């Protein structure tokens, strides 16, 4: 589904990603772990098409199409979704209307008519109930004054509404208490199927107890230095990252 080959990316001439290779197949859940500043969030932003980063080398192939030159919205229309580490507050636009706009933008890009209002409302109701989101919350301005946990839950709600092929969750677990974490994990697990994939970016093993990954990658200084099964996450939790660095140096 997603093939990343020798990906290099910089910001203001500073190289952050230094040759990333990653292969994600449909149905898989991958986790990328690594210390602060290793480039994990940059990788997720580059896949989603953030223009601030300059892709200097390499290829990003999504469903057999090279997407490096595509705008973020085109990538979204192809089925890539990024759950933000810090969702942006937009006063004056309600969650519901934002969702309507986003869904209809997807439909328009795929040559479909706007979703009928009753269908839209039904879908919003279903998805928000399954994530235990209060009705009142939907008429509030997008992320405006939301708590950290509410913002993250709102990201997963958006994901559930948009039903992407590839969901990238950037530190979605940070700022969540254990109950909220379970709800969010449950939301992600519901999305899992043989046709779509999930890329989790996280500091902690905690989330991986609830969303069990097929592959765990360790990212250090802009490179994936080690990959393994879900047991690698436990080892990292126990031993930290130093041993990986040491192993790499040897």
């Amino acid at each position, binding site marked *: 589904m997603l093939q990343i080959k020798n990906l290099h990316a910089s910001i203001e001439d500073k190289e952050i990603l230094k040759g990333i290779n990653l292969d994600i197949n449909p149905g898989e859940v991958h986790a990328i772990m690594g210390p602060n500043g290793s480039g994990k969030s940059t990788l997720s*932003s580059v896949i*989603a*098409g*953030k*223009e*601030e980063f300059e892709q200097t080398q390499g290829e990003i192939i999504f469903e057999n199409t090279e997407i490096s030159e595509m*705008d*973020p*919205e085109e*990538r*979204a*229309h192809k089925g890539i*979704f*990024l759950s*933000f580490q810090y*969702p*942006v507050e*937009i*006063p*004056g*636009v*309600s969650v519901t*209307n*934002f969702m*309507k*706009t*986003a869904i*209809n*933008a*997807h439909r328009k*890009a795929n040559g479909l008519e*706007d979703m009928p209002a009753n269908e839209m409302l039904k879908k919003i109701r279903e998805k928000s109930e399954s994530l235990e989101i209060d009705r009142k919350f939907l008429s509030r301005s997008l992320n405006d004054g939301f708590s950290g946990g509410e913002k993250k839950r709102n990201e997963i709600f*958006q994901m559930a509404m*948009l039903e992407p092929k590839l969901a990238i969750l950037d530190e979605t677990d940070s700022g969540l208490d254990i109950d909220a974490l379970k709800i969010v994990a449950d939301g992600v697990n519901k999305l899992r199927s043989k046709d779509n994939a999930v890329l989790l970016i996280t500091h902690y093993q905690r989330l991986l107890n609830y969303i069990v990954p097929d592959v765990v990658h360790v990212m250090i200084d802009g490179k994936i230095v080690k990959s393994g099964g879900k047991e690698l996450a436990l080892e990292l939790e126990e031993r930290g990252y130093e041993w990986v660095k040491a192993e790499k140096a040897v």
Partner: protein
Amino acid sequence: MELKEKLVSSFLAFEEEYTGSNDDLHKIRNQAIKDFETIGFPNRKQEDYKYTSLKSILKEDYSLFPKQENTLEYKDIKKYFIHEIDTYDLVFIDGIYSSHLSSTTHDKIDVCLMSSALNKDLYKPVIDNYFNKIAPKNGLNSLNTAFTKEGAFIHIHKNTMADKPIQIINFSTGNESSLLVQPRNLIVVDENSHCQIIERHQSLTDQPVLTNSVTEIFADKRAIVDYYKIQNDKLSASLIDNTYIEQKSESFCSVHTFSLGGKLTRNNLNFYQRGERIDSTMKGVTIIEGKQHVDHNTLVHHIEPNCESHQDYKGIFDEKSVGVFNGKVVVEKEAQKTNAYQSNNNVLLNDKATINSKPQLEIFADDVKCSHGCTIGQLDEEALFYLQSRGIPRKEASGLLMYAFANNVLESVKIPEIKKRINKLIALKLGVELGFNL
């Protein structure tokens, strides 16, 4: 001949034409033309006009009195009315009252013409009390006063709520040539009374039109006045709007100004608080592009204690457009416990667009709350990326962000149909299809 000379020399002929019985008016006008002759038009050497030059609009050879009366068909101009609701309408074409497009009343409230108010004995007490009382002597006001002939006269009697909003619409057809029009409005709202007014200046020609409008508003004790100015004119039309509002105790006055088009727009908006527990609210949305120029020059004069003023102006400037915000708040020594709030936020969409923002606070009292803030920025790239990553195209995403930015100014609009209309105009301006109500 320069415009000033032309105006002064035309005055005699204008006065000779006047056949009314009001001798006082005669004197007022004669004095005003003398004042104008002495003072002249404002120029950039004056602090208040530092960022706005009138030169380019004063060089035209304006026709002062249209030679023929022009008629318009309602169906052709319906879109300029807030026609979704029932209103009283005062419609002027090239400065001349159009009775077939208007709907006036004398039932409990007077919604009629300045020309008749100036000449009928019935209205003399009101004219004597209020006409030309708060507009200070300056070039533009004096010019308008000298040529005062027509405009809106609105008098809401004591304990009366106007049963529907009042629209004042000035059309310019300028079929013959460029045109100078000078409407003069007087609005008197007595104790415990309430009215809503919508004002619009609309050119229908590509010939240059300059409007120099003066409006005096008096809000007596506990009166409520909501005023909406819709400025979305042609690129050949310029407007100098001079509005003066005097408020008595416990009155509420709000003015919303939507500046969405025109060559040069200058809003001189002045509030004088003569009483206690008064509330004055000024809100504005400016969205312009090209070489358009919009200048908001506001004054709130806090004279007595325990009063409030709120100013919130938002601007979005694209291409080479220029915005000016000059907000002056004066708090007199006696005006303790004043609460004055001022905010001016701007988004520049282009490197060549300009905003000059100048808050001016003169505070002589020591127990007051005065705040002011001004921001100038671009659209937040992170917010744009967020919306784009949800599949919303960049153009629509920036429209949505700008729309959200301007949105809170619309929140205080009390007539839903105006809110809807402005929503639509803004969406149109920003080139986005808003298939939903925000």
